[in-house]
């Protein structure tokens, strides 16, 4: 890798998937960084919507939570949560939703609920939050998740947030309104979904990463696109913003 961290290229790869003027549903962590980076660089007219009810947010500091007061001050508006979920998300106005998770499987289904059995969990995770509805209802979903064998099992222990379910036309058959996962961004590369089988396919490797390294961290025989691309690394401008305005505030250091 170059002069940037694995986290930084995840952020910039996610930011590069956005187009100016889009209406984006933002989560915490890397998606939050990615969207705020895009807004400060290529996409000044991005509309940031948080499930907390902040509409058109312009946070002056990097919000640690999706309910941060900086998301309200200077925003275009505030909605109640029933309104955000119904009038924005269910109504189909969210063009891009971001998701993360503890596990993702080959058809893009996500688990943030439990590791192990639901009633006797090995690890109890936080649960859905707004993830299930983003997965079902957003026009498209971008997943950001670090690559590991544990995080990329053949099947997830629990489908919190449906991707393409069993693959093929199953998602469409069940009538899910949203388009489902469009890309998965990890610390090793970017993955897309086959338009027929809906199986995850490696689309690009981050600079310096090998296909074998990705396969070693994936719990099923991972297909790779051919030709296999190389992810565009963070630009100097992006790194400047990420390490400057978007650096965690001192009290979060």
């Amino acid at each position, binding site marked *: 890798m170059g002069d940037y961290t694995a986290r930084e290229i995840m952020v910039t790869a996610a930011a590069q998937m956005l187009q100016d003027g889009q209406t984006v549903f933002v989560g*915490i962590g890397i998606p939050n960084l990615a969207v705020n980076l895009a807004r400060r660089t290529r996409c000044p007219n991005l509309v940031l919507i948080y499930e907390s009810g902040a509409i058109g947010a312009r946070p002056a500091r990097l919000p640690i939570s999706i309910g941060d007061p900086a998301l309200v001050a200077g925003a275009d508006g505030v909605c109640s*949560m029933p309104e955000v979920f119904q009038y924005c998300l269910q109504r189909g106005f969210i063009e891009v939703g971001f998701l993360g998770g503890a596990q993702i499987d080959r058809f893009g289904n996500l688990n943030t609920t439990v590791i192990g059995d639901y009633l006797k969990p090995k*690890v109890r995770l936080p649960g*859905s939050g707004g993830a*299930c509805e983003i997965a079902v209802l957003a026009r498209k979903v971008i997943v950001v998740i670090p690559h590991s064998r544990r995080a990329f099992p053949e099947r997830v222990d629990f489908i919190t947030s449906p991707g393409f379910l069993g693959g093929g036309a199953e998602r469409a058959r*069940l009538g899910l309104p949203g388009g489902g996962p469009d890309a998965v961004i990890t610390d090793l590369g970017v993955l897309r979904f086959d338009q027929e089988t809906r199986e995850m396919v490696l689309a690009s490797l981050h600079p310096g990463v090998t296909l074998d390294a990705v396969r070693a961290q994936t719990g099923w025989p991972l297909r790779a696109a051919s030709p296999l691309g190389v992810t565009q690394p963070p630009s100097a401008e992006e790194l400047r913003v990420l390490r400057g305005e978007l650096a965690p505030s001192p009290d979060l250091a």
Partner: protein
Amino acid sequence: MSKVMTTRDAVARFVPDGASVVMEGFTHLIPFAVGHELIRQRRRHLTLIRLTPDLLFDQMIAAGCARKLIFSWAGNPGVGSLYAFRRAVEQGRPRSLELEEYSHFGLALRLQAGAANLPFLPTRNFAGSDLPRVNPNILPVTCPFTGQSLWAVPALHPDVAILHAQRADEQGNTQVWGLTGVLKEAAFAARCVVVTVEEIVSSDLIRRDPNRTLVPGFRVDAVVEEPFGAHPSYVQGYYDRDNDFYRRWEGISRTEEDLQGYLDTWVYGVSGRREYVERLGETAQRLRAASVLCEPVNYGY
């Protein structure tokens, strides 16, 4: 008809053992003062309801108040786990905790159905998720016009809603700005409503800006003035979130001993919120909000 009372009296009067209690506020306005009083009064067998249990319910679970949790996201946002919650679920300590789990949309909709007094509300959510498989309160419903199958959740009518807000008058007309989350739905869904506020203000001030009223007085049973009543959560225009404390909770909640130590000092060890704020000392000063005023609008005609 003043409804003003103390937190102690409001809890004693409106929250019996075994009650179902919704304590809302999404990141903003989390009613910690009342939560701590519930712990101090050693309330037991409560059904606790919140979209995000947060540190508030982690503390109440550790203190043994909870029998059941109705929720949709149980974590410490941007930081990590709620360890008391996890100990209860993974190891049954201090006691087992029954879980009833939704997504945010699903639980918000249950409160909305409760507020509207409808037995159910439909949603396009949930298709393909395993949530309906583990929660019998998410059932299919058919649209009578299109024949389409949707999912539905039932109304939720908690015994009590406990809310914190910026201000109210003595009759309980409660004003909120910043994030409103599901506060209104919780207030209208519940059987009775306790509101704590940063300031009790004159009815005149309230009536000069009626569009800011989130919960009208006829829906409120008790009003308590409890400055800093949401700390370590925040109140827009009053004080910032104590993000540092949220981060430190990761360490405090990891062991039962440290968590108990926290409760001994900050909950059992104070008589109420006033003493808690005194103990916070200059942290409270540090968190005070800057002044960023909006422009007034004209209600004349």
